C-alpha cells in the first residue's frame, strides 16, 4: 500500500515538529541562562541567531506540504504562527547577519520576558501539534490503507 501525500506530509510534520520542540526548549533555556547571568548576551545571540531562520524554514516547509496535500485544517492551525514569524522577522532590529536577537537590546527586561514567553508558548503549541500530527498521520494512513 502506498500512502497518500497527506500521510506523507503528516509524517514529515511529525518529524520536523520534534525538531521544533527541541528548538523551543533550547530557546527557553538560552533565555533563562541570560536571565540568571550565566551567559554573555553576545555569545547567546551568536548561538541563537543562526537557528532562527532554520526554525522558520522548517515550519513553513511542512505547512507547504499540508497545503499541497490538501490538509487545509492543519494548515490553518499553523497559519497564525507563520504570520507571527513573518511579522517578527520583518520588524527585527537592524543587523547585518540573519537572526532576530540583538545583544544590545536583548537584556532589556521587556525583550527578555517577551522572548521567554514566546518560547513557552511555542513549546506548548508544538507539543500539542505533535500529537495532532500523530493523530493526523494515523488517520490518513488508515484511510488510505
Amino acid at each position, binding site marked *: 500500500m502506498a500512502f497518500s501525500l497527506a500521510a506523507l506530509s503528516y509524517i514529515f510534520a511529525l518529524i520536523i515538529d520534534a525538531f521544533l520542540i527541541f528548538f523551543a526548549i533550547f530557546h527557553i533555556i538560552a533565555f533563562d541562562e*541570560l*536571565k*540568571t*547571568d550565566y*551567559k*554573555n*548576551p*553576545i*555569545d547567546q545571540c551568536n548561538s541563537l541567531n543562526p537557528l532562527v531562520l532554520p526554525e522558520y524554514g522548517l515550519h513553513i516547509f511542512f505547512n507547504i506540504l499540508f497545503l499541497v496535500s490538501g490538509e487545509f485544517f492543519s494548515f490553518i492551525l499553523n497559519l497564525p504562527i507563520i504570520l507571527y514569524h513573518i511579522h517578527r522577522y520583518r520588524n527585527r*532590529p*537592524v*543587523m*547585518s547577519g540573519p537572526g532576530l536577537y*540583538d*545583544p*544590545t537590546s536583548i*537584556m*532589556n*527586561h*521587556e525583550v527578555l520576558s517577551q522572548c521567554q514567553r514566546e518560547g513557552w508558548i511555542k513549546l506548548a503549541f508544538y507539543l500539542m501539534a505533535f500529537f495532532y500530527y500523530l493523530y493526523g498521520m494515523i488517520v490518513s494512513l488508515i484511510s488510505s490503507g
Partner: protein
Amino acid sequence: MPAPPMNGPPSGPPPLRPDVRPPLVNGQPGPPPGPPAGPPPRPFGAIPSRVNVSGSAPNPSPTTMEATSLLNGYQRPSPPINLPAPSGSTSTLNEGHRSHPSQSLIGQENSSKPSHRVSHRMSPVPPNTSSSYLHASVNGAPTTVPTTTVSSKTSVSEPQSISSDRTVKLPPNSGINVNGTFQGNISVSSSVPTPVSGHYSVAASRAPQAVNTPTTPAVSGVPKTYNSQVAGTSAHLQASHSSGSQLVSTSMSNSSRTVPPSPVNVSSALQGHTVGSQPSTRHLPPSVRPPSTVAHGSQFKPPGAGAYAPPSAVGPSLVSPSLQASISPLQPPFRSPAQPGPPQTKTMGPPVAMVSTLPVGSTQMQVRPPTSMGPPATTMGPSPTTVGLLPNSVRPPLPTMGSVGPPPPAMGPLPPSMGPPQPSMRPPPPSMGPPLPSMGPPLPSMGPPPPSMGPPPPSMGPPPPSMGPPPPSMGPPPTSMGPPPTSMGPPPTAVGYPPLSVGSPLPPVGPLPTSMSVPPSMGFPPTSAGYKPSVGPPPTGSTMTGPHHGLPKGHVQQPLPGQEMMPPYQGQHQYTGGPANMTQLSQELGGLSVTRDGWNKGWGTHQIDLLQNRQVLPPGGVVPPKPLLAQEYLPNCSPDVFRCTLTKVPETKTVLQKSRLPFGLLIHPFRDLEHLPVVSCNTIVRCRSCRTYINPYVVFKGERRWECNLCFRVNELPEEFQYDPVSKTYGEPSRRPEVKETTIEFIAPQEYMLRPPQPATYLWVLDVSRQAVDTGYLKVVCDTLLTHLDKIPGDRRTMIGFITFSSNVQFYLMGEDQRHVQMLEVGEVDDVFVPNPDDLLVNLEQSRTLVEELLAMLPEAHGNSYHTQSALGSALQAAYKLLSPIGGRITVMTTTLPTVGPGALKPREDPNQRAGKDIQNMGPATDFYKKLALDCSGQQIAVDLFALNSHYVDMATLTGMSKFSGGCIHHFPNLHLARNPTSVTPFVNCLTRYITRKIGFEAVMRIRATRGLTITNFHGNFFVRSTDLLSLPNINPDAGFGMQVSIEESLHNIRTACFQAALLYTSSRGERRIRVHTLCLPVCPNQHEIVTSADQEAVVGLLCKMGVDRCLSSSLSDARDALVNACIDALTAYKMGLSNPAHGALEAPPGFQLLPLFVLAVVKCIAFRGGLSTKLDDRMFAMCELKSMPLKHLLTFVYPDLYPIHLLSEKGALHIDDQVIPQPGRLHLSAERLERAGAYLMDNGNAILIYIRSGVSSAWVEATLGVPSYAVIPQPLYEDALPALDTTESNLLCNFVMHLQRNKPYHAPVVVLKEDNPARMLFIQYLVDDRTEGSHSYVEFLQYLKTQIK
C-alpha cells in the same frame, strides 16, 4: 587619646528612635551609632602601630576564604564586579583564588605577634586647589614623586581628579604636622583638637617592604599575559600583511613626501608591548599598595582656592545637616565662608539628627504643628473674646497664613496673633471682613471651646479668609479638620478620610442646609466648626457683619460639650451640606479654597492649584527632596550622585502601579567629588550571598556578625574589621569608614583583577579629508593636545597613538629609536591592516619629542589634502586592532559622512521633512558601528565621538560606536575656524576638559537592589553584560546613567530598600579601585504618600530617557504622547489620593508642581520637538545627551536657568573667597517675565546668553559692558563679552558668571545679544513657557492637562 567627642554616638537620634526601628540601623545594641563621621582623633605623633600585621597570618586570611567561597559557592560565582576579561565574554569570574598572600592580612590586635607593625596614620590630603576646574588636575600631578618608594611622603593618586581622592602617605615615623595648612581639610589625629575635616586616613598600613612582597608575585604573572595577547595580534598582522597591500611610508620630517616602499617590521611588535607592560607592573605595587592606608582624603577646598567648587560635590554625610538642607544646586555648601568646618561636618556625624529635622524642613514641621496646636488652643481660651473685638489687628497675621504655606505650624505657637483671619483674602473683602473676626475667635478659643474648636484646624481657619468661595470646597476642609485633632500625629493622608467615617452629630446638620442655600454663609461654617451652630441660622451671614462676630463668642462658650464631638461634627456638617448645591457651588467658585490650603499646609500635604499659581519655579533653585529614614542619623547618598525618582519605595507592585510614576534611579557614579574617602584594606567586607559591600545600612548582630541589608543574610565580620585604625579601638565595627560613608572608594586587592591593570592608552583617530582640513579643526586639536600633553591623566606607562583617515588610512610611526615621525599610508580600506603596531602606539614619555613633532606638523602635512572621501569605518577597524591587546580610549573626530570602505553610509535625511510630525531614519542604517562597539567593549576599548560636521553625518548610525562601548559623544555643528569663529571656543574648552579630565579604564558597574526589586532597563552609554552588570570600557566624570526598577516581590516587613552601585575601574595611574554608592529609601505602603514624596526632577530625568527609547522603538509623536501621558498619570494618581479634590482646579503637591513645566519643556526640546525645523543630526545628538547626561546638566539642558541681571545686588549673595556672588532668583522661561528695561542671563548648559532689552538703562550698560549705551553695543558679541570693569555691577556680574561656569564641566561661551538683533533668536527659542508654532504654551498645557485628568 580620648577622642571620641566627635565619635560619640549621634547623641540625639539613636536614643530617640530606638523603639522605632532598632535593628535596621547599623547601630549596635549599644548604639555606637557613633556619629557617622567623626574623624577619630589620633595623636599624630603616636604613629606606631597598634595593629600588627602578621606576616604569617594566623588564619589564612579572611580574604582568601572570601575569595574561595565566591567561587564555590553561590549562584553568582562571580563577584558582582570584576574585571572583565580582555576577551570580554565569560570573564566575569573572579580570579580571587589566585594569590592571597597571607601576609596581607591584618592580624587581630594581639601584640604577641608583632611581625610587622602597621601604623595607622592620617593622610593629609594636599590641598589641590587650582583656580579653575580645568586646571585642577595639573596641580596634583605627582610627576615628581617617585612612585616606587612606598614611603614617599606624597604619593598622590589620581592627580587628574580634581581634588577628589588622594592618598598621601606619610613616613611612618614622621611627625609631620599636617594640620598646619590643611587643618580645615583633614582631620588627623585625636591630639588635634579640631576634628578636622571629614577625613582621616585610616591606615592599616604595612611596612613598605611588606607591601612589596605580596604584590610582586602577582606582578610577575603579568607580562606573560600581555605577551600572549600581543603575539596573537602580531601574528594576525603578519598574516594580513603578507596578503600584500599597498604600503606607503612617508617621511614627515621635512614635510616632503617620499614614497619608498618600506618594509614593515612586524616582528618587533612583541617587544614593544612587553616592555610597556612590565614597567607598569613594576610601578604598580608601589602606587597601588600604598601600604594599605585608608585615606579619607576628603578635600575641602581651602578657602583660598577660589576657583572651583562644584556645589553639589559634597558628600551628603559630610555636610553638616544644616548645610545640607540648604544646599541647592546653586549654592555649593563648601563655598560658604562659614564652612570652615568641613571637618566638623564629619564629626558632626550625630548632627545627622539635625539633618533629619532640618531637611525635612517644611514638611515635617508642618505636620507637627497641629499637635502642638492642641495644647495652645486650650490656653487660648480667653483670647477669643479679645480677638473678636480686634478683628483688624488680627487680620495681618492671616494673610501670611493663607498665602504662605508655612504658617500653619507657626500658627500653633502664636495663636493669639495668628489666629485672626487675613484681611487680604482675595474674595470679596466685605464678606471677608466678617469672617475674619469670626475666624479670629475660633483660633484662640480653640482650646477652650473644644466642641467647636476642638480641632485645631479651626485655627487653620486662616483659610477661611478665602471663605468667599463656595462652601462646598470649604466644607471639605472642615472635615479634614475634624479628624486631625485626634490623629494629629499621623500623616496627612489619613486626615482626609476620617471625616467620612465620622458621622454622628446631627445638630449641625440642620443648620447647615439652611446655610447652604446661602452660599456666602456657607463659606463660614467650614472655617470654624464651632460656629456652625450659630452660623446655621445666620444664613444672613452672607453679608457677614457684626452678628457673626457676636456669634463666635457666644458659640465658643457653648462648645464645651465635648471636644471629641467636634470632629464628627464637622464631618457631618459636610456630609449633609453636600447635597446638590455643593457641586454647583464648588464649580462656581472654582475651587479656590484657602481653607483647605491652610489646613493641608499644616499637615504638610498642601497642594497647589497650578492654574492659579503661575509662579511655580522656586527662585532659589529646586531642592531635591531628601529621603526620610527612620534612622535619621544615618547619612544618605548625595542626590547629585544617586537619586531615585521616588523617595519612598512602594511596598508592592500594585501600589507602584497605582501611583503611576516611573520608578527608577539616576546615577552619576564617577562624578568629581570633593570629598571621597578612600579605603585600602586586605579584605573588602562583602555579603557572601549577594556580594553587597558593607555599608552604613547593614545591621550588626553582635560583635562578629552583620546582616546584609539587601539580601538579609547574616555574615561573619572579619577580624580585621573589628579594629578601627582611626581611633585605634577594638570591637567597634560601626566606626569604620565603610559603615559611615555612603560613597566610598576601595583600593581593590588582587582578586579584582583578571589581568594587571592596563596603562592609560589613548588613540586619536582624526579626519583629514578635504572638508575636515577646511574647517581648520585639526590645528585646534593638535594645539590643544600639545598644550595639555602633560595633563593627560596617566603615569609613566601612558601610551598614545594617532591614526588619520580620508579616503585611505594613515598611520604614524613614532618608535623610540626613530629620529622623525614616519607616516604609513594604507590604501586598502576594505580590508585594512595595521602595519608595525608597536611603533604606532607608543609610550608618551619615551616618545615625547616625536609626539610633539607630529602634533606640530600634522595640520600642515594634510594642508593640501584633496581627498573628499571618508574611510571612517576602516580607520576604526584599524584602531580596534591596534588597541585590542591593551584596551583604552579611541577618540574619533569626523566631519563627513563615511563613504568608502566598511561602514559606508548614505545620506538619509530629507531636508523637507525636518519639521514633520514624525521623523524617519532615527534608527541606525547599519549595525557596523554597533558591532564594532561591541567588539571594542569586549577588549576594554571605548570609542568617543566628536562630530564636527556641517552636513549630515548620520549621527543615528555613528553614535552606535560610542553608545555601546561606554564612550561619550560630542557634537559641534558648523565648526569652522574662519567662517564661524564663535564655535571654536566651546570646542577648545570641551576638548581641554576632555583631555584632562579624570578617566577610569576597564570598568564595570553593578547595581544591586534589595531583594524583591529588579533593575529592568538601563539608560546611558554602555553594554549590558548581564542583568545587573554594565560593561564600561571607560568611565568619565561626565557620564550619567539611568535605570528603571520594577518590584518583583512585595517588600512586606521591610522598612527600607537600598540600592548599591559599585563601580570597579582602573585609574589612570594603574590602580584598581572600587567606588561604591549606597542609597537607602524608606518603604511605604501608601500610594498617596509615594506620589507626594516623589522627586520631580528625577522623574523628569527618567522620563526623558524613557522617551528617547520610545522614539527609537516607536515614533516621535508616540514618545511625545507618552511624555504628556506620564505627566497626566502622575497628577491623576495624586488627585485620586485626595479626599476631596477641588473641582476646576489642577492640583499638584508642592513636590510636583514643576512636573508639567518640565514635561512641557522636554516635549519642546530639540530631541522631541515637532513643527520646528530641526536637523536630524542635532536631534539625534540631543537624544544621546538626554540618555547620558547627569541629571543636573540634563535639567539645565531641558529647562535653562534664566536670571535677571540688571538688578544684581549683594542681597542674599554668597560670599566665597572674598568674592560676592549675587544670587538672583530664577525666572520662568517666558517673555512675559522679561521687563522692557531689563537684561537677562540664560544658562542653557552649553552657553551663557545675555539678552539685553532695549529699555535697559545706559548706566547699567556702561557699567557692565563698557559701552555708553544700548544702541552702541556691538553685535553679535562673543569674545570678551563681559569685560571686567571696575564697577560694582561689572564685578557682581562677572562673579556671577564665573560662579555659573564653575558648575559646568567646562566653561561655556558668554554671548551678548541685543533685543533688536536677529541673533536674539538664540535666546528666544529657549522661552519654552511661551507658545510656539505647533506647541502649547504653559498655560494652555495646564488647561489641556486639566481636561485629561479625570
